[in-house]
């Protein structure tokens, strides 16, 4: 049975296990996180002074909460399976790459390919995301409060990408089955990506995602839905120009 996460009040009273990366190595942190076993009482972690380090809290597979105080470099929280990881700063390329489950919240901006190949869980970016956000996503839900860059959701296979701001060039290029919801303007759509009707089930799904991501004051009906025209599933010589 998973341990009950500590309340915020308990954490603030100093119950969190604090890892200061100016005192300890990244390897020590990740090793300690990997050694967690089901039912461990160490459910709250705090990481200080990340200073743009790579691979902070990758491969965590227990339902613990980790607060990273500052900005991180490449691949933060990659492969996350069940943890709740919050970065109180910005994240470099590849944040949450191949997440399986759990949630990741970036309080600042995220760099390129946030949530790439993610299979499950929720990635929330409270600032902007850069290019290739959700590239090859395979079941992950991504909610971006700000804008996303070019080639986002390239080859996306399943899951939901929600963008409250604008999307850059070639959104959803060569998309398979993921659902893309964008509230702002889309610079251009990529090959085989089209605007689609917002049916009641999409409104319901999107509202659920907005609620989960803590978005308030925004209605699901303000978004447009985009997805695959399914013309490139099988090779057809008439579509050769689109590949």
């Amino acid at each position, binding site marked *: 049975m998973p341990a009950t996460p500590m309340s915020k009040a308990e954490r603030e009273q100093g119950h969190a296990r604090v890892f200061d990366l100016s005192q300890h190595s990244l390897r020590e942190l990740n090793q300690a996180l990997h050694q967690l076993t089901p039912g461990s009482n160490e459910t709250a972690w705090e990481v200080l002074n990340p200073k743009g380090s790579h691979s902070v809290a990758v491969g965590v597979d227990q339902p613990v909460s980790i607060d990273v105080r500052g900005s991180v470099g490449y691949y933060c929280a990659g492969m996350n399976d069940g943890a709740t990881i919050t970065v109180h700063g910005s994240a470099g390329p590849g944040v949450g790459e191949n997440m399986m489950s759990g949630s990741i919240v970036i309080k600042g901006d995220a760099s390129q390919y946030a949530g790439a190949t993610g299979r499950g869980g929720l990635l929330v970016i409270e600032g902007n995301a850069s*290019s290739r956000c959700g590239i090859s996503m395979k079941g992950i839900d991504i909610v971006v409060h700000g804008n996303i860059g070019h080639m986002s959701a390239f080859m996306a296979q399943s899951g939901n990408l929600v963008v409250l701001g604008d999307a850059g060039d070639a959104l959803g290029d060569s998309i398979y089955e993921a659902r893309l919801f964008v509230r702002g303007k889309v610079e251009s759509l990529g090959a085989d990506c089209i605007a689609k009707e917002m049916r009641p089930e999409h409104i319901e799904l999107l509202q659920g995602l907005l609620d989960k991501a803590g978005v308030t004051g925004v209605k699901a009906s303000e978004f447009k839905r985009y997805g695959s025209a399914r013309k490139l599933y099988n090779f057809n010589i008439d579509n050769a120009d689109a590949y």
Partner: protein
Amino acid sequence: MCGIVGLFLKDKALEPKLGAMLSEMLVSLSDRGPDSAGIAIYGAATGNEAKITVQSPKPDRDFRGLDAELAKAIGAPVSVAVKSTHAVIRTTPDKVDAAREALQTLRPDIRIMGAGEAVEIYKEVGLPEAVVERFGVRAMTGTHGIGHTRMATESAVTTMGAHPFSTGADQCLVHNGSLSNHNNVRRELIRDGMTFETENDTEVAAAYLSNRMAHGKNLGEALEGTLSDLDGFFTFVVGTKNGFGVVRDPIACKPAVMAETDQYVAFGSEYRALTKLPGIDNARVWEPEPATVYFWEH
């Protein structure tokens, strides 16, 4: 990979620390490229002095007595300040071309790293820490500078293959990426009178900018030209006598982060290069957009 950094100071009070700040930024990116490293530092141009940074594989032999011999050959005062394998030759601005020519016969093994009124360039094979230590970069003062740590993907790991590449007075460029049409562009530039020291793709980019500026374009226009004329992946950071520019290709898969405060504009391949800069926690930090030219001037 490769790691690039740049720092353009707005606050004069930071000028004595430029070398130390830029060195720190570059060393933090060492694991992006362990092959060679280089740095270009711009001191204030006085208008009555030109500097030529040269390198020799045998500094003991080549730099001894060079000041007197060169002064005699060009008929102007010359000073030579030796730093390890490099030396900075100072003379009057009108004698730079004469000095270049005289060096070819006086010291045929010497290679010219760069020349101008403000720039000094130091580059060698090895890690950034070793390179900045060897040339005492931390103690240098200046107004702006750029640096590079290389993971070679094009051409040999040699001193001349290290960045920055300088192909015009006070101009230099560092690059993260690889160009796919550099041979064609090189041929076109050679037809237009440009000369090349290496097989390196980055030297082509530097020469492209110099060539376009020689044809009357300003740096901003020359940088715009790279977006249509150079094919491949690139993030370029360039320095001029009083300016600092950044451009990324339209795909923009090579990483780049910028920060600006009232005191400076800084560039790093990664955010960790910027973490020790003063006031970084309150700086405006952003990723430069693809196919967009950014430029600052004093």
